């Protein structure tokens, strides 16, 4: 399972995109009743949609045909001589998708705009040739150029790492919590803690699951690394070429399709501080996991069954969610902005936010500060968690409140 899950993940993504394609693969037939007679040229057949023009038969007859032949729908453009804009209506059995409606609106808008331009005496071909596109090349001061894709790759990798870390914390943290609750409800806990100290038992659980998490991630990194090497070999990417892409070449790349995109993607991935990212993941996973799982263990010890855990979950879920949102909005928007920087140093959110920032290259002092704070905080939460754990595992019956938990610290 551990080996297969990355493959299963990739498989799932492929399956979903395949299914989405299947979903919209049905060919649709639309009846067009255009009373104005201006838009006939707009409705040309495509792969997915074909149009039947029944303008000469009128709206009612068109509706009959659409219904009898089970067509997807009918577009009716009425003639309204008093206003310049003709009202357009879509009739159909089901509500059409945004994509579909948007496509039709675009076509009609384009036609009307073109007509208006011509009416203003503007030459359409001249307008078309006058249009220009510009592609800004991004280069840093040391002369290393990067494409726009670079930002997406960085955001993608950072986001994935941060999200993965959150999932790991929640999944393995829950595992610790469930095992504590199991021992408590089984009543084996008193037998166990007459042999080992509660602190040892708790740390044993946390360390065990930490190692499980690290192993899991290490396997993924290995699989990912092998995949990267294989792909690099297959597409013949020269890692050093990435730094010397000249503007002309990169423009050419963008014009050409898929294979070059893959090459560029691979080049960007190779340019990421992968070692830092993987190292950061390990460090922040261990720190963040210790921090949160000791709270999970304390919660497990405080309650008698899993349903009672809900009231205590908020303090765990909230900072994690906050970190994810800050990561996905603030970091991607501006990786070195105040919000992103502060949240990547606050211990409760730093593991996730900092991981998201690492691909964008973070100053060393910030990393050191955030790791130091993280370590100090997890030492505190482990101490705090073990206090509650020690008392909680022997408490049955009463559902404790936050006030009770504070009282337990003094026992």
């Amino acid at each position, binding site marked *: 399972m551990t080996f297969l899950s990355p493959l299963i993940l990739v498989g799932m993504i492929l399956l979903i995109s395949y299914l989405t394609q299947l979903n919209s693969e049905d060919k649709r037939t639309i009846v067009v009743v255009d009373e104005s007679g201006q838009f006939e040229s707009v409705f040309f057949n495509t792969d997915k949609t074909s149009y039947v023009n029944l303008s000469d038969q009128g709206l009612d007859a068109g509706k009959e045909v659409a219904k009898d032949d089970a067509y997807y729908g009918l577009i009716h453009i009425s003639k309204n001589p008093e206003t310049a804009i003709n009202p357009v209506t879509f009739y159909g059995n089901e509500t059409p998708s945004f994509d579909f409606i948007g496509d039709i609106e675009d076509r009609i808008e384009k036609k009307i705009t073109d007509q208006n331009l011509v009416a203003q005496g503007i030459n359409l071909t001249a307008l078309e040739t006058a249009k220009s596109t510009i592609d800004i090349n991004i280069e840093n001061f040391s002369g290393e150029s990067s494409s726009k894709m670079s930002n997406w790759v960085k955001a993608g990798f950072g986001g994935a790492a941060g999200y993965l870390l959150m999932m790991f914390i929640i999944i393995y943290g829950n595992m610790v919590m469930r095992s504590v609750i*199991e*021992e408590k409800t*089984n*009543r*084996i*806990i*008193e*037998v*166990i*803690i*007459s*042999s*080992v*100290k*509660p602190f040892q038992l708790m740390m044993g659980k946390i360390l065990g699951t930490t190692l499980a998490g690290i192993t899991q991630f290490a396997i993924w990194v290995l699989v990912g690394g092998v995949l990267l090497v294989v792909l690099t070999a297959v597409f013949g990417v020269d890692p050093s070429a990435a730094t010397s892409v000249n503007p002309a070449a990169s423009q050419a790349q963008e014009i050409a399709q898929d294979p070059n995109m893959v090459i560029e993607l691979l080049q960007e991935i190779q340019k990421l501080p992968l070692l830092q990212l993987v190292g950061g993941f390990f460090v922040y996973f261990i720190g963040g996991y210790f921090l949160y799982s000791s709270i999970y263990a304390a919660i497990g010890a405080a309650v008698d069954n899993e349903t009672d855990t809900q009231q205590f979950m908020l303090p765990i879920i909230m900072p994690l969610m906050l970190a994810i949102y800050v990561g996905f909005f603030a970091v991607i928007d501006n990786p070195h902005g105040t919000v992103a920087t502060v949240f990547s140093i606050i211990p409760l959110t730093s593991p996730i936010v900092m991981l998201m920032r690492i691909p964008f290259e973070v100053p060393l002092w910030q990393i050191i500060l955030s790791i130091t704070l993280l370590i100090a905080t997890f030492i505190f939460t482990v101490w705090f968690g073990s206090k509650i754990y020690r008392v909680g595992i*022997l408490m*049955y019956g009463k559902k404790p409140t936050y006030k009770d938990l504070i*009282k337990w610290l*003094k*026992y």
Partner: protein
Amino acid sequence: MNSLLVADTVSKKFGDFTALNDVSITVPEGSIFGLLGPNGAGKTTLIRIINQITMPDTGNVTLGGEPLQQHHIRDIGYMPEERGLYKSMKVGEQVLYLAQLKGMSKAEAKTRAKHWFEKLEIGDWWGKKIQELSKGQAQKIQFVVTVMHQPKLLIFDEPFSGFDPINANLIKDEILQLRDEGATVIFSTHRMESVEELCDHIALINKSNKILDGEINTIKRAYQNNTFDIGVQVVDETAFAKAQQQLASSFKVSPAQFKSLGNEHKLRVEMGDNGTPNELLSTLQTYGQVTHFVEVIPSVNDIFIQTVSQNK
């Protein structure tokens, strides 16, 4: 006799609640020690302190002359009141795991476990999961887990609650055998009558305080108070009624409860220091046939109730 376990003025508070207040007990080596008292008296807290599960606020505990240390967990076998095992774990693995937690090597644990499984005739449960066993069967496993590492001190909290009578007897016999082999046993219970005949030393705990302790026979002797249950087949009712009044003037007399086939007068006479059994018997003989003459030995329960009411 050497003392194996000594608790000296142990106190423990939970917040504002005092669970133990300067409690001292001395458990002689090779004895069966009854730690008795109602629910909530502090027995379990004291046991948890002995097991190093909780730390006392003040006072100290020594085992075999040494202050309690981490390695002492190997010398103690503890069966808590709330028992349990990992439900989905196999019996054999579980027994080995718990024995290894107590510091046994795996090979050693295996030999000892096999020995006990044979002794209790449960060898074929080795590969079963706990959840496949009945409650009584699981309790046998729990017992094996408690005694397997050959501890010097065995502690049973509410030992026979939850055991069916057959298993309770079996376990009782095994415990006595372990005692004969040199182990010291502590029974903690609020059902005093259930361990009375097993214990040779007791300590009574009530509301966090120890109210009495010592050798059970000494205690009983101190409380026996020269009391007798008597039954007399009276010949002359009026004469006996007079005699009864006379008895009541010098002793404490109350109706007695015991089984008999006749319709004799049944009395409980508490003589204290005012008379001897022989005098009483010879007086009674003059009124008719004495069918019943038994010294009342106070039960631990009686002693407990008496001591608690005295202390109030």
